[in-house]
């Protein structure tokens, strides 16, 4: 460790300089610019623009749908990760490779195909719509799209943990007379909780800012199926810059708080692994 202080390797100035320059120009200056412009508004104006009835409805949908999608992913993503790691069945490798598909697929295509699947004449919609389950142009559609884009987070966070799980501990539990359910609840579940929480938080954070997949499936009706990022675009198209920036700052602050929470969860999780 000590020799590192002498900086034997060259290039610190060059690489660090370029890193800081590039980071500042592309990330820090734009973020600071947005905050500075927004804070030139008076507090009263900011508050009024941030809490219009339409904005409140948009936040509510964004958070409600993101939470629902993250919960669905936490449950079914965990199940999928478990099945992929623990069991052998035909098509396992294909599904395993496909888990990253939502990451790789452009969000616009995701929205397009999901809207079509759940529409009244779509493959799934033709069965679901008669049952009263309308997936397209409803808040449910928003949840569906957000579940799709957030799913890999839970599965991919959980998989390495499941693979690294020590089977000896389960054997010990079984030897001591625990049934399979008891072993799962008292031995396996506690180890899985931190990565599930991390995956849940990542999926939730991603869902808050999601735009591309939702505009196709939600119908974007004001106060009904309009998400917060879409309202920003609407404000911008109305040349209402103050309104757009205010909503953007609210979203940014929420994202940063979430990022902090994700980091805290990860630190908490790492405490257990060490």
């Amino acid at each position: 460790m000590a020799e590192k202080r002498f900086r034997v390797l060259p290039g610190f100035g060059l690489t660090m300089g370029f890193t800081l320059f590039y980071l500042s120009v592309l990330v820090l200056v734009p973020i600071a610019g947005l905050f500075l412009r927004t804070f030139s508004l008076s507090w009263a104006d900011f508050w009024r623009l941030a809490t219009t009835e339409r904005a409140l409805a948009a936040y509510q949908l964004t958070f409600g749908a993101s939470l629902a999608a993250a919960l669905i992913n936490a449950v079914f993503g965990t199940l999928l990760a478990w099945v992929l790691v623990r069991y052998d069945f035909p098509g396992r490798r294909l599904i395993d490779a496909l888990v990253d598909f939502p990451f790789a697929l452009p969000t616009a295509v995701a929205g397009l195909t999901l809207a079509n699947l759940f529409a009244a004449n779509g493959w799934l919609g033709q069965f679901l719509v008669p049952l009263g389950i309308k997936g397209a142009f409803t808040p449910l559609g928003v949840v569906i799209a957000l579940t799709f884009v957030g799913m890999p987070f839970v599965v991919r966070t959980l998989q390495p943990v499941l693979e690294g799980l020590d089977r000896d501990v389960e054997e010990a539990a079984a030897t001591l007379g625990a049934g399979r359910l008891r072993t799962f609840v008292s031995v396996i579940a506690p180890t899985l909780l931190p990565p599930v929480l991390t995956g849940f938080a990542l999926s939730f954070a991603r869902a808050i800012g999601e735009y591309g997949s939702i505009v196709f499936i939600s119908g974007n009706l004001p106060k009904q199926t309009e998400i917060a990022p879409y309202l920003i675009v609407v404000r911008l198209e109305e040349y209402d810059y103050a309104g757009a920036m205010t909503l953007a700052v609210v979203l940014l602050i929420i994202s940063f708080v979430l990022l902090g929470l994700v980091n805290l969860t990860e630190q908490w999780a790492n405490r257990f692994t060490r």
Partner: protein
Amino acid sequence: MAAIPQRKLTAGQRKSQRGTEESPFVKWTLITVALLFALVFLLLPLVNVFAQAFAKGTTVYWEALKHPNTLSAMKLTLLVTAVCVPLNALFGLAAAWAITKFEFRGKSLLVTLIDLPFSVSPVVAGLMFVVLFGLQGYFGEWLADRNLKIIFAVPGIVLATLFVTFPFVARELIPIMQAAGSDQEQSALTLGANGWQTFWHVTLPSVKLGLLYGIILCIARCVGEFGAVSVVSGHITGKTDTVPLHVEKLYNEYQGAAAFAVASILALGALLTLGVKTWLEWREQRLEELAQQAEAEVVDA
């Protein structure tokens, strides 16, 4: 660290482990539910893209792809990708070198800042560049006086794409280079190599898989970015429409089959991305196995 390979157990050994396995009923119920979830949220959306793309026949499909507006959207997307990926790859290499080979204060803050674009909504990212370079923005007047256009033009699309794909390469490289340490580089320097030689012949070969992986993710996102680009593009048909924006426009103009046809190209790209990623992971695993085998043979000898 000789890990016991779980999958190589014989049937007899497996049975003896019954205490640590679920009953077949539970097992197959879990598999069925998980597969249903994967079917609805992974397989059907994928297959549906191609089914809808060809729903009105191959003629409509090819017409949509050959349309001048589609071709110009593809050209723009390729141009943006060709500019953004090398820049972010260069940044990723520089940032990973600075962060992993040296000790300095504020390192964890720097890593957090590099990840920041991931937690910014794409729409907000686009808006930031409008605030900077739009007509009413900080540099709006200055740019207008000089007849320069950034927003509603290609430079704005490039900037927004750079922002959203900013962390991809860096975040792949940092953990790999951290794990590798800098002993090899130090040896190379001791043996008389200069800094560049060390980088080209020692560091780069050892991180090339990670670099390639980061670049692939970066390309996928560059091609597919929608929200950020949508805000800064201005949607001028044939000029500032990228492929995803063109898909949206076709969809809004009730040309569903054409929208799906263009979308199918993007979906093919996504499948290609997955294929290369799976291949890279397989290769890495294989290399590790070979290394373990060689190690075992040396120990035996």
